[in-house]
């Protein structure tokens, strides 16, 4: 009994990831055959760069969905966080009474942007736990609130020309890979460890798997939920900084509908929307599948409209496969 033999749950996760992996390999092979520009180091770098923002959002989304929740506000929080960081970097805060201008360094502006993400994410969690508002509704409201605040803050205009230092976040290169890719890798590494090895990660699965049993086992369910929405907000802000830096501009409509791409990646990666089942690595595979699909279809000069259709079909296929297997299990 003390022999920790290979086990059904990790096996199931592994089997699910293995399927996603096969799907990805098949996809890559097909694209390589169809296009001579696809299977190159340059294009691989491109794909990784393109998905890095979605990876940050989707990892946060995975945490929320593992507890049985959902976060529709990540795209709007991304926009507000990037606008606040860009605005402070550019204009600082004038303190009129002292006739002073509070200047922000790149680090200070980024910290302020992330603080915005933390605050709005925490507010989502507060609404969900304190007032028992369904996550769908609470974060749908935040989707509107944060987007509106972004438009107010920017007065509807992009904030541009953010300088070299800030530009390094999105356009810098380190060891041959763009900085956003390193950031995404770092985020993934941290949260793979958190979900697989740490107490907090175990609690996410427990709360999503059976909230009542978790509560009766002494878990502080509300604190755990508060934490995941806060983390999702923070990761949205990180994604916002990457986006603003890459474009050298904070756009008021940045991140529009990004929440849907993040949810798509989580679902394709095999995480159950009812909570308690799934993994961060699965989500990364989901992001890669979407990224390869988008990139390949562009190279094959398939119209953007067809790309949307294909992405929708892939989501249906992934979930249908899951459902059939769950039923059989």
């Amino acid at each position, binding site marked *: 009994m003390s022999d920790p033999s290979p086990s*059904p749950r990790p096996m199931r996760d592994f089997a699910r990831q293995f399927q996603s992996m096969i799907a990805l390999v098949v996809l890559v092979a097909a694209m390589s055959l169809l296009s001579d520009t696809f299977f190159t180091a340059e294009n691989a770098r491109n794909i990784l760069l393109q998905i890095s923002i979605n990876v940050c959002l989707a990892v946060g989304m995975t945490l929320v969905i593992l507890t049985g929740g959902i976060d529709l506000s990540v795209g709007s929080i991304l926009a507000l966080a990037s606008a606040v960081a860009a605005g402070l970097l550019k204009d600082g805060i004038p303190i009129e009474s002292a006739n002073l201008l509070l200047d922000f360094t790149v680090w200070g502006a980024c910290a302020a942007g992330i603080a915005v993400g933390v605050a709005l994410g925490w507010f989502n969690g507060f609404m969900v736990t304190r007032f028992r508002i369904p996550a769908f509704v609470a974060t749908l409201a935040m989707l509107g609130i944060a987007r509106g605040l972004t438009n107010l803050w920017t007065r509807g205009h992009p904030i541009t020309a953010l300088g070299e230092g800030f530009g390094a976040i999105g356009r810098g290169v380190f060891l041959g890979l763009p900085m956003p890719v390193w950031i995404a890798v770092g985020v993934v590494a941290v949260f793979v460890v958190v979900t697989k090895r*740490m107490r907090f990660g175990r609690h996410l699965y427990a709360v999503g798997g059976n909230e009542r049993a978790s509560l009766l086992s002494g878990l502080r369910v509300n604190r755990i939920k508060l934490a995941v929405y806060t983390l999702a907000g923070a990761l949205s802000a990180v994604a916002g900084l990457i986006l603003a830096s890459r474009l050298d501009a904070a756009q008021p409509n940045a991140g529009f509908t990004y929440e849907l791409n993040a949810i798509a990646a989580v679902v394709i990666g095999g995480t159950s929307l009812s909570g308690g089942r799934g993994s961060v690595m699965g989500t990364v595979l989901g992001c890669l599948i979407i990224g390869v699909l988008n990139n390949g279809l562009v190279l094959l000069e398939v119209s953007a409209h067809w790309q949307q259709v294909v992405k929708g079909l892939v989501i249906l296929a992934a979930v249908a496969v899951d459902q059939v297997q769950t039923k059989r299990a």
Partner: protein
Amino acid sequence: MVATQTPTVELVARGIGKSFPGVRALDDVDLTIVGGELHAILGENGAGKSTLMNILSGVFPPDTGTIEINGEPVTLGNPREAKARGIAMIHQELNLIPGLSIAENLFLGREFRTRLGFVDYARMRSESRQLLERLDLHHLDPDTPVEKLRVGQQQMIEIAKALSFDSKVIIMDEPTSAISDTEVDALFKQVDALKARGVAIVYITHKMDEVWRAAEKITVLRDGKRVASGRLADFGRDEAVRLMVGRNLDLSGMRKEEGAAHGDAFLAVDGISLPHPSRPDRWLVKDVSFSLRRGEILGIFGLMGAGRTELLECLFGLHAKKVSGTVTLENRELRLRAPSDAIAAGIGLAPEDRKAEGIVLGMAVRENTSMAVLDRMSRLGFIRRGAEAEEASRFVDRLRIKTPSLAQAVRNLSGGNQQKVVLAKWLATEPAVLMLDEPTRGIDINAKREIYDLLAELAAEGLGVLVVSSELPEILAISDRIVVLREGRKSAEFDREGANEENLLRAALPGNLDSDHE
């Protein structure tokens, strides 16, 4: 739907048998129901009453036996067929849709339609009004949403619905469990009117007063068998109670050895009360006090709805803001605001609904076992997997949990082994007091035996154990002392020598039996 005299009906069930995996729920039961009479079905929890009623109302078919209505053999394959044959059942949990109006509820699924296919509200309203008038409910407007009605009124709507099917047999399952005394009076007036119209009423209840007030005949079930049936006048109350007890569960040799209880009370529960959430004049738990010694197994017996589960929940830090009373453990008064407080104080709870509240089905045996002690099992937020596996493996060995590995999802274990995982989770917290709510529900006899042995063993090690059970033989077999709850209040307390099935059941039955011996 004019109020005509319904011709007298006679329903005869013969040799009804039904088995579920591991349980013989009904065994060769005969029942005859005649129009114009109220036939009360009596029996302890688990005697087979609900199974029999579900068969009569077409919820599931019997394994053996026949049912005849007015001499004609019938099969009742589903509730719809039963309704078509004039049999309607009013379940304990009402099956009304709160947001819909009275009229919409009455004709749900068979709405009248106009020639154009729209719902014919005018006709539904007028038909509803007629039905309500038959029940003297003139004051109710058919357009009122059902959620605005009191529970007793909702019960009457269910009865109106049963009438609208032109029912000849109406089965009522504990209809008065949630309604006030005046509503009970109104209900019985309608019952009399129905009887006068030739309708047969089958009435399931624990309340002896109601039986003696309205029944013509009674049938007593025990262990799925009919032990008595006949005219009410031929039975005394004491006799009826005696017939209900004496269940033949094979617990021979399971009776716990003389208690190892020692020392003074270390847990004192004083004046615990919990108000009813929606009825300010009622209490789920009212002024319950008891104490527990180390090494003692205290049984808590009560019928459905007596407040057993709620009492344990109060002691575990649930309903924190509504509970009054004090809990003192080792001379320290506890502040129980959440389960985590209770756990920190050394109290564990194995809840009644194992799958919904006790375990996370999708998680492994190892993960479920460590759930309440992860703080101890981790360093700097990282789970010490070695220590976790070691602890889980220790409990798998000790409790003889049958599982292929520690990583097996508990979903794939049997009910008995799932229950052992719940116990492992609590034993890992090294509790001072372990509370178990119906610890052997739905598990097989061997696993039951193991759990009884384990409880005795834990008590011998000095743990205080509280066991809630609605099974008389079980509670008698394992308890050193027994507290009986009746309608939220403590109605009696017995020591080992003084307790027997009859006096426990008498103390648990609502309607004061002691005051009117016959």
